């Protein structure tokens, strides 16, 4: 975090005309938004373009943020709609669960998702690649819970689900992620366990 101010304090400053203060919010949430867009849009280049668009949209609608929910929750809704609109425009496929081609795609040279060799071998790279093999719904819940550290209640608000349903979906997503890791990255998993 680049400044000690809370999200709401930064937003108040931006609304008061201090446009540069918005850079703090961008720095704070760029990885979050980029990770979420990358879950849906597999090309890094496109995902980054959409992530930038998300921040521009959020800036222009900042006066509509009432502070009733967390800024990240509000940002999530913009991220989701912007990504879906982009995919509809580009007619790109969202990858479905258990589609083995996804693994090949993630591994192919043309895929923007290809990580560098060192990262591929690392545990972090493995988890990231395994998450990319999940369905968008599973990847989304894992990302929100583990990477963005949202509470179950907050995830429920974001996804429009009951807290208990979130709990069950998270449990299932983790089980599927574990299966993916064991299936596709068995060697790395052996080294870790």
């Amino acid at each position: 975090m680049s400044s000690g101010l809370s999200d709401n304090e930064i937003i108040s400053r931006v609304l008061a005309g201090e446009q540069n203060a918005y850079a703090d919010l961008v720095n704070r949430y760029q990885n979050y938004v980029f990770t979420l867009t990358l879950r849906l849009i597999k090309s890094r280049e496109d995902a980054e373009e959409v992530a930038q668009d998300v921040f521009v949209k959020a800036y222009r609608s900042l006066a509509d943020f009432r502070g009733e929910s967390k800024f990240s929750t509000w940002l999530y809704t913009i991220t989701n709609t912007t990504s879906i609109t982009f995919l509809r425009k580009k007619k790109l496929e969202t990858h479905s669960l258990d589609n083995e081609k996804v693994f090949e795609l993630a591994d192919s040279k043309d895929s923007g998702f290809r990580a560098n060799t060192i990262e591929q071998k690392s545990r972090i790279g493995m988890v990231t690649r395994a998450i990319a093999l999940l369905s968008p719904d599973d990847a989304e819940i894992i990302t929100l819970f583990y990477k963005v550290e949202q509470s179950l209640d907050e995830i429920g608000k974001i996804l429009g689900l009951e807290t208990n349903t979130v709990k069950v979906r998270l449990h299932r997503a983790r089980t599927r992620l574990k299966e993916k890791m064991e299936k596709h990255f068995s060697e790395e998993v052996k080294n870790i366990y």
Partner: protein
Amino acid sequence: MNQQQHIEEQLWSYIDGFSSEEERSAIEKLLQNNVEWKNKYHELLDAHQLIKSAELEQPSMRFTKNVMEQIAKYQIAPATKTYINKKIIWSIGAFFITMIVGFLIYGFGQINWNVSGDTKLPVDLSKIDYSKIFKNSYVNIFMMINVLLGLVLLDRVLANRRKRFQRQA
């Protein structure tokens, strides 16, 4: 739900810290005495820590700069609630409710409640004089108000759009 799934679900809740006090102590006892639970717990805990260790994706170094360059062209749009006049919405709503109620009253007024028999409709549709409804001065006034409200709304939309274009230019 099979036994394995049940164990996993209980253990995930325990790892996440969502278990109740009673559940926690029951699981802790099982972890001490039951090898299957203990092995599963370590397996899930490893997976949990592994997922947790994964970091968020990072965009390019220029990301913030690109965003700031883009937003420099724009101004923050006024909050939706400031340009949506609630009075207009309420008056449109009131108009339509009045119309519906008016038609309902008129319709019920046409019903002959003394007609018996299940097969016949209580309203003889052929006897309703539609020309009376549409040549009625009250209905004409309602229609006029409706058209006026529509024009006011259209004017506001176009004015807002014009303002937005001017701001962007």
